[in-house]
């Protein structure tokens, strides 16, 4: 973290902008997670919003409805400013995800830990995603949220990672976090990991460029 702070100090006040894709089956909690991450929650340590952020919905939405297509949301963490493409998870829109693979710097994949039945579907979608030509060859960080931990019959994050065979992913950094989006538990932890990964890969790139 210390290094990162220095880096951002170097670059001036402007934070690095990254594009993140938020994927996962319908009703897994993608929009709820993004909603929790929005500035309203962090306003205390981010300070007042600058002029350019004014038009983005600053407050969290009161109710979450199924997304049709996608939503674009923005929020900042300590060192990065995120632009999240919150994609619709309904089956008829999943084929539209691929339009946004190319420009993304990271992927958040959300899983409904209580939905054992559709875990195979999630695995299927994940495999298709990882094998896509725009993703396959890139060392793009993937953050998994094993969401809905508050449910009684929710599986543990270890169990979820087993069911999705995450250990088979060897060419990309990945991390799985247990989360409860409604309360916001576990989200920050996951995001911290993501931030670190992105910073590292940027650093690597800069080394390579030098």
């Amino acid at each position, binding site marked *: 973290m210390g290094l990162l702070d220095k880096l951002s100090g170097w670059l001036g006040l402007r934070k690095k902008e990254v594009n993140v894709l938020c994927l996962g089956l319908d009703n897994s909690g993608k929009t709820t997670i993004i909603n929790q991450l929005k500035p309203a929650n962090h306003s205390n340590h981010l300070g007042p919003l600058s002029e350019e952020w004014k038009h983005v919905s600053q407050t969290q939405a009161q109710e979450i409805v199924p997304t*049709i297509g996608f939503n674009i949301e923005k929020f900042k963490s300590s060192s990065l400013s995120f632009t999240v493409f919150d994609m619709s998870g309904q089956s008829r829109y999943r084929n539209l995800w691929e*339009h*946004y693979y190319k420009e993304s710097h990271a992927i958040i994949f959300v899983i409904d830990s209580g939905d054992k039945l559709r875990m195979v579907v999630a695995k299927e979608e994940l495999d298709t995603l990882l094998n896509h030509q725009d993703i396959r060859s890139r060392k793009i960080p993937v953050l998994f949220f094993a969401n809905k931990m508050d449910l009684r019959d929710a599986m543990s994050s270890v169990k979820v990672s087993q069911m999705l065979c995450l250990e088979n992913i060897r060419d990309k950094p990945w991390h799985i976090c247990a989360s409860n989006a409604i309360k916001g538990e576990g989200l920050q932890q996951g995001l911290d990991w993501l931030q670190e990964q992105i910073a590292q890969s940027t650093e690597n790139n800069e080394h390579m460029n030098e």
Partner: protein
Amino acid sequence: MIKKFDKKDEESGSGSNPFQNLEKSAVLQEARIFNETPINPRRCLHILTKIIYLLNQGEHFGTTEATEAFFAMTRLFQSNDQTLRRMCYLTIKEMANISEDVIIVTSSLTKDMTGKEDVYRGPAIRALCRITDTTMLQAIERYMKQAIVDKVPSVSSSALVSSLHMVKMSYDVVKRWVNEAQEAASSDNIMVQYHALGLLYHLRKNDRLAVTKMLNKFTKSGLKSPFAYCMLIRIASKLLDETEGGHDSPLFDFIESCLRNKNEMVVYEAASAIVHMPNCTARELAPAVSVLQLFCSSPKAALRYAAVRTLNKVAMKHPSAVTACNLDLENLITDSNRSIATLAITTLLKTGSESSVDRLMKQISSFVSEISDEFKVVVVQAISALCQKYPRKHSVMMNFLSNMLRDDGGFEYKRAIVDCIISIIEENPESKETGLAHLCEFIEDCEHTVLATKILHLLGKEGPRTPQPSKYIRFIFNRVVLESEAVRAAAVSALAKFGAQNDDLLPSVLVLMQRCMMDSDDEVRDRATFYMNVLQQKQKALNAAYIFNGLSVSIPGLEKSLHQYTLEPTEKPFDMKTVPLATTPITEQKTEIAPVTTSKLPEKLAPSRQDIYQEQLASIPEFQGLGPLFKSSEPLQLTEAETEYVVRCIKHTFARHMVFQFDCTNTLNDQLLQKVVVQMEPSESYEVIHYVPAPNLPYSQPSSCYTLVRLPDDDPTAVSCTFSCTMKYLVRDCDPNTGEPDDDGYDDEYVLEDVEVTVSDHIQKVLKPNFGAAWEEVGDEFEKEETFALASVRTLDEAVGNIISFLGMQPCERSDKVPENKNSHVLVLAGVFRGGHDTLVRARLALADGVTMQVTVRSSEETVVDVILASVG
């Protein structure tokens, strides 16, 4: 590609357009910067503008490339630049139909339309409704309902207008928003109120009662918005028009009360509605016209224009009412706005008297060069109408028209002038030479192929019969030297007509024709070679058949016959007589000048009424061996208009048979008729061979039954016959509401009026453009002449009309029009008798005590001559 750019350059002219010469592929390439982070709003805006420009220029985008560009554009939603976001909405709307998966932006748009930023909300609603289909509409219904009653006017208006668009797509869903629309209709904002009224009306327009209720409600409560008032007036006048009720209804009172509205737009709308109403009395008209009259002297140009345009439109319908405004219209002639001046003058021309024509024409010519083509056409139309009204003024008009013809102008304008000159020539023989001279001058420098060929055809028809035909040859041959293929071919045909008709010109024409045979174009060479050979024969009959009078068969019919002929290999040569004849176009010899219409498109070869019958009859197996259809008569009513069953009869004549087609309509909603036939009892030796019944005749659904009759072979002179007709059928009573018939029925019959077959059913009209030549062609082998006295007829006009309708032949050489103040007249008629025999009739009429008529008949078949004379006698 280079050529394409050249063309674009020409079109855009000045070259001040920064977007000209845009290339689609280059623009799409540029669109890749949409994917870059961070977004550069300025550059993206510029590229979106280019894309929208290309789309609006009609550039075709393939689905894949459009989808790619669309998805790249969706990323721009992450930018918060207002202009860029609104440009995205525009792009979404433009690409909604050409890109796939446009629903991807649904959530983004829903977010914008419910967001806090008012500038986004309206446009987002409009864009959302463009990408939404019926299945998705449910998902956004809640938001739409909220938006309709939103307190921000632009949001509410957008939602209302978008709903209106979606009525076409999913009426049932939008219908559920009526309450919200109702609430919006009481809004204080004039646009919201107007749009709400529009939506309410379109939701209810199929239910007259509901519309009436709505009108009552709003006319009582009153509205704020003048736009809404105008709309109410339109709805009311439409309703009045449909109900055809008297003008004492509250609807009319409402419209009249709007004449006293304080808003000028509403007042004008009301006046215009009243003036345009059919069968309006003078008393009802007066207040509306006086309002328009007041507007004529308004300082606002728009009001003056509106008033004078309305007066112009109704000048023919209510001349007396418009004449009342003449003084005001005269003042408008000098109006600085030329459009107003033109309309004022043409209105005056329509209503003015013969004496004022000269003065008005002088005034028009002073500024005709300053007005746009569109108004020039209006002027020409007015002149054309005027020529019809005051034929004696033709020299003034002709001068004026020829001056106009010399000016610059577009195709529509020139065509209007040419049509007008041609109609004047046809109406006034004494104007022929000057008119032809003007037209000759015009084609010397005419860029419109259609007009050049039309004029050349006219020259070929009229030129040879003028005192000095030789002077036209130069003009025509110049065309062969200078013009495009189509014009050259037309010029060759025109030349041939001169050669055929004027013996002293023939050697020169042959020399010219020889030169045309070297032409580079096939059609021109073919025509020249053909005419050359025909002319060298020096036979009147050949000239008449192949040069003056072209084919008289129907073109679709010829095409079909030739196709049929090629299908069956046979030794026999193709017989032209098996081809159905063309029904003479009615416009050809109309006595009144057809008003020069601007909307007249180049006429396509639409199948004629007879071609349609031919097809219908051919589909009935019983009628397949009858050969081509020779003639179909006009429908004949066999019942009174208001009876239980309405029957009309169409007589179809074939070479040896006749088919009677009975179009029956059952006007009783409690009866179903079955097995309907019309039984016919002939008075002569005609033989009924077959009945084709109409199997079912339910309430108000017309159906046809047919009767096939053989014409007597042994007596060809038996051309007329009377049939007494009885309709026989099985009645099954049925429930008027459900249409469910009872199980059993009973036989019944209904007596119809008699059907008569006369000589005119055996003769098809054929127009011979050059009757004299045709007369010589047929020859006097079977000529017969007889004199009759028509005691009951008082005037020549009446006699001419009677003869034409009795024989059913085509009057030629405009001989159906009797010049005024003449005591004698020659009527020439042409036709083809059943079986394909050319038949010509010349009737010399003299007016004494009653009319004396000497009829000369020529035909290629003797019996035909006898038949016609016998039937006249």
